[in-house]
């Protein structure tokens, strides 16, 4: 059981990306929440080697201390917390935010690695660098997009179908992120330490669905949510939940 509930302070949480750590009080309302942590079970894989990026490729990438070369495919912190796991619950109708959800290109990396976008919402692809980037979405159900975004400008796109969309910049081949378009009403992305909190849930019993770019997807057991209370939960993921290669399914 987790002894604290803390949403991490980096830009890695899904929506809104709060800029300072906020201790979340249990909301006094008619909704409840689920919070907890995604943790790695079993032997931890060796951390991935840093990306190989050459100086010639990073002209116009605005970042202090050079481009971040961390491989963010699978991030496990010292305590076993797994970052960038998307957790969703279909509790009510989808709430479409009024303002666009931002995916920035900064220092020749996408920030954040993964964003969750309710069906019908708009994503604003920004470019905070001086160099040109292109937004190449490998959408299968939404219209694909491959346009450049000059330094300091932005593009917008509205998603109408739920799917996981990989986003790449072809100019800088290492740049990669995911737009998780969901038809779920409540969701969260696990923070750097694996912690998450799904709020605003009407009382009831839910199964949490989760997805991770490397580990695939799954569902938890039923969790009970009561009004005004927080239900704790720990999601254990391991190497065996790793997405299987093709072959046997022939699709």
């Amino acid at each position, binding site marked *: 059981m987790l002894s604290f509930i803390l949403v991490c302070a980096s830009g890695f949480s899904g929506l809104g990306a709060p800029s300072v750590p906020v201790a979340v009080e249990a909301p006094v309302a008619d909704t409840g929440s689920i919070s907890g942590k995604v943790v790695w079970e079993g032997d931890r894989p060796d951390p991935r080697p840093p990306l190989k990026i050459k100086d010639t490729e990073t002209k116009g990438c605005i970042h202090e201390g050079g481009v971040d070369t961390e491989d963010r495919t699978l991030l496990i912190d010292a305590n076993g917390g797994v970052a960038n796991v998307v957790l969703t619950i279909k509790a009510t109708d989808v709430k479409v935010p009024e303002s666009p959800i931002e995916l920035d290109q900064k220092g020749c990396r996408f920030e954040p690695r993964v964003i969750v976008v309710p069906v019908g919402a708009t994503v604003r692809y920004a470019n905070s660098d001086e160099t040109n980037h292109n937004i190449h979405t490998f959408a*299968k159900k939404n219209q694909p997009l491959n346009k450049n975004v000059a330094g300091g400008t932005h593009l917008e796109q509205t998603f109408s*179908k739920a799917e996981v969309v990989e986003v790449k910049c072809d100019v800088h081949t290492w740049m990669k992120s995911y737009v998780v378009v969901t038809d779920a009403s409540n969701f969260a992305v696990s923070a750097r330490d694996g912690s998450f909190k799904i709020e605003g849930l009407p009382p009831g019993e839910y199964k949490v669905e989760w997805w991770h770019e490397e580990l695939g997807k799954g569902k938890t057991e039923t969790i009970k949510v009561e009004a005004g209370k927080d239900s704790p939960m720990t999601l254990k993921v391991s190497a065996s939940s790793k997405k299987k290669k093709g072959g046997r399914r022939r699709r």
Partner: protein
Amino acid sequence: MADRGDTHYSVPSLNRWFAISSLALLIAALWMVLHDFDRPWKVYQREYQEIEVQRAKAALSTPEAQEAIAEEQRLASEIEEIKRSQAQGGGDLASAEEELILLEDEKAKADARARVAKQEAGWQRFLTDEHRVKHGEDAEYQEMLEELVERERVMMETANALKEITAKVEAKKAEIERLNADLEELETRMKLATKNIALVRKKLEELDPTDPVRRLANLVRDDIPGLDFVGPTLKVRMALPPKLTFELNFTKKPRIDMCQTCHMPIDKEGYTEYEQPFVSHPRQDLYLGSKSPHPIGEFGCTICHRGAGEALTFQRVDHRADDEEQAEEWREKYGWHKQHYWDYPMLPARFVEAGCVQCHKDSLEVIEPDAPKVVEGYKLFERYGCYACHKVDWFPTKRRPGPPLKKVLEKTTPEFIASWVTNPKAFRPTTWMPQIFHLENYSADTEVAISNYGTGRPMMGDEWSDAALASVTAFIQSRSATDPLPEIPLEGDPLRGREVFRLSGCLACHNVAPFTDEERAEVDDLAQELGGTNEHGPNLRGIATKVAPEWLYQWIKDPTAYWEGTRMPNLRLPDQDIADIVAYVFDDPDGFFHDVPEGWEPRLTSYKRDVLEEQARWFFNRMRPEDLEDKFQGPWKADRDLLVAMGERWVLQQGCFSCHEIEGLEDANRIGTELTTWGSKTVDKLDFGFIPEIFAKEAGFEPGSEEEYEAVHEFKAYRENFLQQKLHAPRSFDREKIKNPTERLRMPWFDFTDEEVEALTTFVTGLVEDEVEQARMIPTEQQLAVDTGLRVIRQKNCIACHVLEPGTIEFDDEDGVHHSVKGQMSFFDEDSVFPPSMEHFDRDLANYIADMRDYEEDPEWYPEELYAQLLETDVELGETGTTFAISNVASIRTTPPVGGRFVDLVMRYYVDPWAYNPETDEYDICLTGDPDGEGRIQDVDGEWRDFSEEPFDKLRWTYAPPVLIGEGEKLQRDWFFRFLNDPEVLRPQIRVRMPSFHWEDNEAGAVADYFAAAAEKDWPREYARQLQIQLGLTPAEIAQGIIAELGLSGSSAEQVAGIAEGLPVETAAGLPNLLAFGEAHNFRFHPAVNPIYERIPQRTPAWLKRYFDERPDFYKDVHNLVAGPGGPTCVQCHGLAGRPPTNATPIGWAPDLTLVRERLRPDWVRRWLTDPSKVYPGTTMPANFDLGSEQWQDLYPAPSAEQIEAVTTWLFNLDRALIEN
């Protein structure tokens, strides 16, 4: 006359008998006339008339017709009303018309009066003038002058009166017209309303008149003998194709096809619900219709269908049943049997495509979609190398179909040769090499010969064949060079070899499929599945037991060194790659290359010396027996020498040299019958042997019985029977025959399937004497380019790697509307590793549903909708690249793209390079050369990368062979031609090799032309344009020329004349007329392909001036935009004049921009720069100049469209721009 009593007969009774017999004769004569008159075809025509009457009545009772009739009645009553009101209301119109008559009468009178007055005035003036000249101005003159004045006054008066009355007439006319206008308008409307039904009514009135007099007339002219010359409705109808003749007893007579007499609606559309002969031809778009390429007036029927066109009974036409069931039905119904006195019976439905060959020798590839069976036969004829033994003078493929044997010992062993020739399929079940020995006419259990010409022991077929096999092996061995090949200079790495083998392209044409269907069903590896294009080359399974490693190394390095005409191309692999492949094949970690079918064992054939000697006696029967016996003791004493001598005889006799080049036998004559006009050969020239009798016996007919006679004759009546039997069992016509062993039939056994036999029979039956020279399709140069190009593309197997046409998706939308679009089904979901197969979509969908039912724990789960991407713009669904949803999932049907199967193999390799391991029941065998076994693949920069983490589309467009859809619009023809001859590296990161092919003649040109021609949609326009330029004629002159020289008349002449008034030449004249005109003026359209694309207007001074006037530093400005910082940074991915892209990883590399100028076409470049995803959906290239917004204004201030134009211009002048910078 009374009986005189002096005769022995009674005259009155004789008279009676005369009367009776003459009456009987009269009745018989009448009956004969009637019977003769009532021809069988009239029965059909009457029946057809009934159908027509029914159809006309039905047409008049449709809602539309009913509506038209109602409208007609309404208008009629309106007209009636108007007329009536006119008549009643004092008759406005009637009285006006009466008044007009009166007025016109008056006008005529006034006119006469005015003319008389004018003449009189003129005469008076002359008289007056004459008087003045003769007599001066005297008193009489004064009188005359007065008279003149009076006359002129009258003239004026009458003229005015005429003017008045004319005005009145006009006014009256106008009044009448006004009164009539309403009526006329109504009548026009009525005509329009009844336009569609008027024809039907007319027809109905003709066939089934309501007027009793006409009814009677119809009866008289159709049904009374002797009166049927007065335009009967029942009559013989015929087509007289003007240019087609028929060979009859050494003369050519015009073809007359009377088939329409019974098959009346054959050239009309819409007769589908009736029985023969009252049905339309099923392909009106292609045949008989006036707009089809084969209108009935020009082609008739028998040129394609055969049969007796001038016959008018079912039997005499020589109809032909398609199967026994139909034959039985016809026998009962029509007493049908073969028409014995006709040599060219109708082709049954299953062979009907044979009729295409005679006209389409130069366009077989083009007609394939409409004549698949005969073209399949043509391809089989090529693939099995039939043309090598059987001459077909026009056959385009000439090379020997089998490999040369001049250096065969470098490649394999005598043991292998012996076993292989014995039964090639025992080693490779899919080989095209036929079996030659141990066939039925040397069957194992029969005596073939008696030794010593009848004095020794009987020799059995088995011994005979074995001795032949041993001699052939010895002979081939004796004629093969034996210099040892050099050793392989490099050490190979088998695991790396596997990667090279799988990625370089070997598996595009070859497969390593297991030998049996059951084994193949168990593998999950595209390399081990048979897939059409990967059967182009031989199955490589077991190959390590056949060839020597040194030979394989040399073969891959340069296939033409061993076999000049081989279709195996040179992949230009580095020596290390070749050594690795050889190491892979011989180390064989996958166990493919040492796997041989059960029972296969290479070994020399054992033989008996006395059989060999006996064979020599037969083969050398011109030698004196003593000489021959001397030879056995002398030069042929050693078995080896006798074997070689006999081997040569056998090779010559069996024709091995036809397919294989053999030292010393290069010019030997083909052994097969020439087939150029085989289909015209009459059946009596074919030796059916005793096969018909044997079959009749097997069918249970009593020998000598009438049934047996019928069966035998029917079998012998059709040349196709001979051919099918020959193809199935080539030596069966020797059955039950006693024949000299050296004279027995020689055609080898190919083990054709029934479908192959049918296709080949169709093709060979179609090889007939040229009776259609004039009507034969003369392909345009464009069609010729397409035909040759398609053939070469097939022969070089281009479609193994390149997609030529996207796949098709058919589905019903939520409104039940059916759609058929070009596209690709999208990934089912984010867990899918590959997009669903377009070939096995149902299988993949079923797997997906099963997976999801597990995951959702819902046994009823079914996808709400699936997604697909358009690969060709669809009017309703959107532009190329659009993703669309399909909600009626069950209605989806997919057709795979044409070509590109190897792309799937490459993608499998990059995305999921793991093989199934039965020991662990996991896919954990790494198929790549990764030394760590982690499935990484070596990139061209030497790095090992895990590509499975890259998006599928990105890999597809970067590492797989390019699609060639619309490639002709993209590439300059000349560059393409050069590239085919000498491929240059465009994308160094692609591991698949574009091979260097061995092109014959103009094959490379044909391929380049094909793509250019296939992309060229308005070819007639270009033809017309070139015609004008080369002949120096204006469009109007061309129009005049066409009308005058081609003798056009009527509406077509009018249309052509319209060119002078500005109608476009190509559409107004029509391509056939243009071609005829061009040909008459010796105009040849060279090059075959539209040269418009080769003109690069971007390089002309006038074009450039526009840019330089505005920007003196134009090149520099665009260079900054393209390559400078802050721009779209094209050089991050594209090289520029040999300078590599700034991207460090090969996945981000694209072709050098300097290639554009000679390689691409400007229109395509413009389209590409505007929105690359609409050209290649999924491509890595982004839309850099978004038309919806203005970008890069600090670098090149102009709207996006102008920026695109500027970049295009810069690209096509890059050579100049680079010099300047």
